[in-house]
């Protein structure tokens, strides 16, 4: 844990932006500029490829995986689930009429009726329960297969998260932003320490990926998750990853699809506006 400690002390010297003051648009501009300056060699639309957008050595290996990625198996499973009729005769297509054109780019969105954030996973499970079916578990398994299928249909569409001029929407955005910049856990580190200020730095055997473009590739197939247990098939949602990153700094993770993570996803995905959806994708 030495390296983390070193990064930590160094990170403390860096002034963090103050949450909740600037408008989302100016936040977005600053956010992009930061990464464009930090990684001038990375084409702007390549940040969707996570750490591989900034590390040529691991990129080559990743390209070998992407030649025939394991997640294709799960896109197929997702398609099967998507097309299976519910007991009432309806199906997912009734909930997601535009799925052929791709819908991933519009999630998460602010629902003014309930004043809350709707994630793609939330919408998938709502579709199930509205039709009298049992919801899926949140972080892995069926929900990631269906979301992988929906993401694959949305590839190339540009992330288009809207923050309406509604105080409740701004609140959600600010809550997510705060989570991103707030230090937490025994190691007292923020998402921003690792994925904003120190993106590109090495932490143990990992190079830290830029937060710009983070959400575009989800759900992901991780070799690490694939090897964890007999049942682990490698697929996981963005919130599964959030939980892992919270745990890394010895902070208690929030529940997948908790209001806290939904707000974080809202901010985090808004920061990738204009980038192409490329989920599902393959990761270390």
């Amino acid at each position, binding site marked *: 844990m030495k390296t983390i400690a070193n990064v930590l002390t160094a990170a403390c010297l860096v002034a963090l932006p103050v949450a909740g003051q600037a408008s989302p648009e100016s936040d977005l501009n600053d956010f992009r500029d930061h990464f464009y300056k930090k990684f001038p060699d990375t084409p702007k639309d390549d940040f969707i490829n996570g750490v591989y957008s900034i590390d040529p050595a691991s990129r080559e290996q990743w390209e070998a995986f992407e*030649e025939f*990625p*394991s997640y*294709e*198996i799960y896109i197929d499973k997702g398609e099967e689930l998507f097309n299976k009729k519910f007991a009432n005769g309806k199906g997912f297509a009734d909930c997601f009429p535009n799925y052929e054109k791709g819908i991933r780019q519009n999630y998460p969105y602010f629902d003014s009726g309930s004043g809350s954030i709707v994630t793609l996973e939330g919408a998938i499970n709502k579709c199930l329960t509205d039709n009298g079916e049992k919801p899926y578990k949140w972080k892995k398994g069926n929900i990631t297969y269906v979301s992988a299928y929906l993401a694959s249909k949305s590839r190339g569409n540009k992330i288009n998260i809207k923050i309406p001029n509604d105080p409740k929407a701004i609140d959600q955005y600010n809550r997510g932003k705060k989570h991103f910049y707030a230090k937490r856990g025994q190691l007292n580190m923020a998402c921003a320490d690792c994925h904003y200020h120190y993106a590109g730095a090495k932490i143990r055997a990992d190079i830290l990926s830029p937060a710009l473009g983070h959400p575009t590739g989800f759900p992901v197939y991780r070799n690490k998750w694939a090897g964890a*247990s007999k*049942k682990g098939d*490698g697929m996981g949602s963005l919130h599964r990853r959030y939980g892992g990153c919270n745990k890394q700094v010895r902070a208690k993770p929030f529940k997948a699809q908790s209001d806290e993570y939904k707000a974080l996803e809202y901010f985090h995905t808004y920061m990738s506006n204009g980038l192409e959806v490329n989920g599902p994708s393959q990761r270390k």
Partner: protein
Amino acid sequence: MAKSIKLRAKAKDGVATVKCLISHPMETGLRKDKKSGKMIPAEFIQEVTCEHGGKTVLGAEWGSAISKNPFLSFKFSGAKSGDSIKISWVDNKGASDSLEGKIK
């Protein structure tokens, strides 16, 4: 084990490049399930074959050190777009599957 094989084959200048991905756990039999603490029994593909025009173009023997969800790519000549090829596998437990696909 329905649909365990995904196949992509393309012919260019008479040479077919075949890529396949097989959904299979490729368990070595030497590791414990982290959750249950129990040993996971060995389960891995031992033989993979590819046939084209009634001939075996590739015979592969695998051990458990081939990664989970195995990937295999190879090339052979004398193929053209529209030809069909057949990929088959058998694992140590006797499970098997095969898929016939067209070369693009």
